């Protein structure tokens, strides 16, 4: 609560929900009320009005979802599903029977329901209340004929909270930002703001400001300045430019934490058909492309085509292909014999080196593809440095042989999966690995001596998480002294619940499943680089 004379600059602190800096005139959110809606018709007529308004609102939402991207459409889907549920209208109908007009009945019924959600014990559910406010306002706007508010491009929205559909309908290309008295870093709008790089502050508390006043939103610094001096704007802008040394043009897949540390996010791909559903500019390339599912492992051309396809898709970004990781639970071809079915038997690199014809064939496809883009190779299940060396020799020999035939090749960077504890603890011995990537599913089952596919020991497998994090932290420290890139492509990284611990362990590069990208991106964008959330349960 602050109140000052107009001309004087003053500062207010808040919680960053989406980093960045914005300067613009204030747009003050109008309070939505149902005043002057008293004149009711007959009960039947008011009921009809309400049903028709819901049908119209539903059509508007469908149209908006149709022209939105996948993440936004998913958010609107929730509202559509709520509107299609007769339970909401039935709550309002009770009030119509009691004498309210359609608009007042709808407003009152929805407010009761919203109050119940706002009162929920957990933050994630409370953050959905504003989605229902969105539905309430849309139907109300149809009933009253008053259009939903939009605001001038480039301005800074200031209000209690912001509804997702308002965000989606607004033109953010001219810049601007969002300042919410309440709000939540877990809200749908916060997710949208992070994925579109709109600076956003929440939990500022109510303050008074005149519509049109100039506002400096320093969301990275968790504060805003009303009526700032030009000098202040200049300082904040240059500070935020310094905090971003890696990506002057905001390279794809780079997310900034609240304290301005760049985190890379890459995709995991099982099958080339998944590429069309991922926007290349939204990720830092492919962090793990599995090759077990490509079909016939003896078809070199099929492998080559798939790698080329991935490289074309990625442009300049890296594509990390993992060599056939057979054995364990992945016996997809007849060559592996039964003995290697066990997780502790001949699998991954062990099997590749035991079946050199398969390894050499895949190496040839990789060498040819590497000539056409930023391709890297990841070796599965490495336990000792000699395995890495043996595979490198295969690449060198095959490259020479292909060269003699006049085939264009390039020896790619060769890195290793860190999933065997004996290797994970000794990364400093793997100086010939060009990079490292944690495979936490296997690392966890080996650390806990609990098979990941055995439900009877699932709890032990899950309980290995702290041990996995400790091993990761040690590995990250070793990789740093070796000046080698290190990241993670295990399932842990696709689960938002584990991100704080992984950030604390020092990881700065995450590869996740395509359908987890949006969630993980917004999770990372809402936290500090040491793993603390920007806002805890408010």
């Amino acid at each position, binding site marked *: 609560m602050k109140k000052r004379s107009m001309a004087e600059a003053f500062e207010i602190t808040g919680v960053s929900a989406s980093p960045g800096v914005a300067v613009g005139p204030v747009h003050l959110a109008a309070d939505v009320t149902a005043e002057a809606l008293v004149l009711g018709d007959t009960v039947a007529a008011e009921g009809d009005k309400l049903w028709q308004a819901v049908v119209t609102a539903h059509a508007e939402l469908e149209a908006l979802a149709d022209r939105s991207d996948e993440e936004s459409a*998913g*958010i609107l*889907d*929730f509202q559509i*599903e*709520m509107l299609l*549920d007769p*339970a*909401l209208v039935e709550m309002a109908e009770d009030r119509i029977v009691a004498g309210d007009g359609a608009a007042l009945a709808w407003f009152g019924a929805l407010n009761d*329901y919203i109050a*119940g*959600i706002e009162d*929920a*014990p*957990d933050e*994630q*559910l409370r953050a*959905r209340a504003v*989605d229902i406010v969105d539905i309430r306002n849309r139907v109300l706007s149809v009933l009253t004929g008053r259009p939903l508010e939009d605001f001038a491009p480039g301005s800074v929205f200031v209000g209690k909270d912001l509804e997702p559909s308002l965000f989606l309908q607004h033109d953010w290309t001219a810049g601007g930002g969002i300042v919410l008295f309440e709000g939540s870093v877990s809200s*749908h709008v916060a997710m949208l703001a992070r994925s579109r790089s709109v600076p956003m502050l929440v939990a500022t508390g109510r303050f008074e400001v005149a519509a049109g006043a100039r506002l400096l939103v320093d969301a990275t610094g968790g504060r805003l300045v009303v009526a700032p001096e030009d000098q202040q704007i200049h300082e904040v802008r240059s500070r935020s430019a310094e905090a971003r040394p890696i990506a002057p043009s905001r390279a794809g897949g780079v997310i900034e934490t609240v304290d301005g540390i760049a985190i890379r996010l890459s995709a*995991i791909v*099982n099958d080339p058909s998944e590429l069309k559903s991922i926007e290349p500019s939204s990720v830092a390339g492919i962090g*793990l492309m*599995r090759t077990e599912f490509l079909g016939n492992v003896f078809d070199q051309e099929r492998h080559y085509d798939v790698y080329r396809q991935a490289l074309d898709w990625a442009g300049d970004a890296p594509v990390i292909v993992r060599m056939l990781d057979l054995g*364990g*639970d*992945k016996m997809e071809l007849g060559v592996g014999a039964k003995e290697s079915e066990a997780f502790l038997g001949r699998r991954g690199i062990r099997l590749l080196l035991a079946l050199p014809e398969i390894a050499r064939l895949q190496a040839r496809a990789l060498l040819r593809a590497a000539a056409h883009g930023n391709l890297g190779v990841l070796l599965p299940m490495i336990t000792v440095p000699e395995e890495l060396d043996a595979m490198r020799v295969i690449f060198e020999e095959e490259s020479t042989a292909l060269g003699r035939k006049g085939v264009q090749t390039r020896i790619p960077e060769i890195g290793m*999966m860190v*999933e065997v504890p004996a290797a994970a603890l000794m990364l400093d011995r793997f100086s010939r690995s060009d990079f490292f990537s944690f*495979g*936490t*599913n*296997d690392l*966890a089952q080996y650390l806990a001596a609990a098979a*990941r596919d055995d*439900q009877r020991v*699932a*709890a032990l*497998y*899950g309980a*290995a*998480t702290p041990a*996995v994090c400790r091993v990761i932290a040690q590995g990250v420290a070793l990789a740093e002294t070796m000046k080698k890139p290190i990241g993670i*492509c*295990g*399932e*842990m990284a*696709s*689960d*938002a*619940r*584990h991100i704080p611990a992984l950030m604390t362990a020092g990881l700065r590069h995450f590869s996740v*499943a*395509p*359908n*987890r990208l949006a969630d993980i991106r917004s999770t990372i964008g809402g936290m500090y680089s040491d793993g603390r959330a920007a806002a805890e349960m408010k």
Partner: protein
Amino acid sequence: MTDKMPRRKATEAVDAHVYCQAEIEVTHGFGLHARPSVTFTRLAKSFPCVIEIEVNDSHVWLNGKSIVKIMGARIRRGSILKIRARGLRAAEAIHALKALVERDFDEEKKHGRSV
């Protein structure tokens, strides 16, 4: 990491195809919020039978096809969900809904594969 395995195995009463019930623990990180509740109710609505849910032995049975009721029930991670169905294809509905909860509402899709 996998903690998707439901700790409590579902207890099913497969008497006939007119009535069926299952009990299951919600293991999805955020419980049954926006996106999972959309998936759940859409699947429930694809069956002709009456489907109801009860949360944490509350003895209050809610319409399992109503997202408004489900959001209002504030189901979170660790909540014990009872699902019952009555009518045509009841057993099939229970089987499908239980499997959906066990699959964490398909939030992972085929990316549950090992790394």
